[in-house]
């Protein structure tokens, strides 16, 4: 049982407030982290992972900031949109470097390559990979430390329909093992079939946290989501 909790989290980049007083708790299961582009999802996740320093507030993994864990990759696996690969390296080499940095046994490299279905391509240079294959490699990297918490930023980008189905299965399996999975997406339909709970962000603030069914209510899922994320006029009048 590993929880992720965020309280009073705020990030300002100069004059722009990317995240304002965000708060939520995520428990085991799959949680969808939703909101349109620019809602502050990625900045929130990066603060949770110690990559971006909050202006104020706290973001904790199992009660401790990410950067305070001795070997955080064994607790949290993350796959972020902007993380890249050196094109001249093979997938195996890339994962072997990460495994060494993370203090993870080298045999895990072949295991995670198998889990994401990249074994046959493991000795090819990443420069020749399709977007979908890179996405799988990012997931392999997140799984390397066999972590209890997974934070996946737009993991469906670049996956074909078969890849999406595979991803949904993977997320369900991870949740069934009692892990805490956070999946961000700006496409509601993409995660609606997979998630148990949702957090909706818009314009830097958290608009909803709760069960997927609660959000759907009477207006329907799509309607509720659009209502939460389209009140731009009201937002503009806030201080």
């Amino acid at each position: 049982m590993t929880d992720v909790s965020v309280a009073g989290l705020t990030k300002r980049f100069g004059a722009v407030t990317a995240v304002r007083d965000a708060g939520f708790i995520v428990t085991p299961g799959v949680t969808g982290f939703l909101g349109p582009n620019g809602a502050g999802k990625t900045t929130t996740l990066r603060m949770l992972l110690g990559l971006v320093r909050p202006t104020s507030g706290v973001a904790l993994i199992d009660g401790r900031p990410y950067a305070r864990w001795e070997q955080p990759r064994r607790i949290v696996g993350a796959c972020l949109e902007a993380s890249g690969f050196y094109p001249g390296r093979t997938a195996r080499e890339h994962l072997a470097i990460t495994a060494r940095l993370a203090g993870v046994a080298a045999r895990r490299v072949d295991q995670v390559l198998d889990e994401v279905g990249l074994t046959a391509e493991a000795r090819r240079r990443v420069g020749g990979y399709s977007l979908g294959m890179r996405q799988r490699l990012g997931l392999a990297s997140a799984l390397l430390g066999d972590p209890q918490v997974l934070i996946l930023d737009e993991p469906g980008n670049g996956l074909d329909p078969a890849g999406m189905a595979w991803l949904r299965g993977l997320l369900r399996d991870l949740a069934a093992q009692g892990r805490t999975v956070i999946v961000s997406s700006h496409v509601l339909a993409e995660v609606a079939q997979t998630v148990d709970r949702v957090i909706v962000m818009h314009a830097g603030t958290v608009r909803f946290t709760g069960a997927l069914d609660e959000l759907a209510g009477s207006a329907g899922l799509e309607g509720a989501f659009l209502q939460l994320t389209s009140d731009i006029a009201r937002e503009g009048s806030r201080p």
Partner: protein
Amino acid sequence: MTALFSAELLRLRTTRSVWLLLVAGQVLIVVGVSGVMLDRDDIGSPSVQQTAVAHIGLISLLSLVLGIMAVAGEYRHRTITDTYLAVPRRGRIVAAKLAVHAAAGLVFGVVTASTALAASAVWLAVRGFSLDLGSADLWLTVAGGVAWIAAFAAIGVGVGALVTNQIAAIAAALAWLALVEGLVAPLVGDAGRWLPFALGSALDRLPTAVDGPPQWQAGLALIGYAAAFVLAGVATTLRRDIT
């Protein structure tokens, strides 16, 4: 830290530009040595041989680029996110890169020195002379050239940590060596002897290095530059948002 060293070593080995720089260094050193050996008629003289071999130190421009790419290259390819996710104590990463790249610079230097000596010996043999291996000056230059290459690799790691835009960092570093230091030196008088390229020249006992500090002082001063850049790089790295 052992795991970090081995990770950085694997990263270094699997970076293609590292091997390109090493090969380019060997081509350049052969060209540099050959220039002297073909041009001069008095190549039997130990001082001329020393002049030819002193080209070793100039390869430090390439090891500087190597060091810069160690950190700034990770920002360029956005692998830095994964790296800091694995090791949030960023200072440790910079320290591991510093150690591995200073060692790599040393290897780069030894390989380059071997190529320089071999190329010199071949040219001398072709023209009926031989390399004066008993000359202390020759070996002081070889040692100084190797040290210059290693020191610039270390400085490069600091520069790359400070200026994480790879293109900007490399352009600024090379502009300093090719142009800016020469413009600044006359303005600062005696202090000009303590600027990086002047120190390297003194360390390498380049013929163009006049009035430079003794070799050991030049070496220590370059280590000081490396320490200053790395500390400044670490200080900014700890605060930087990785977006």
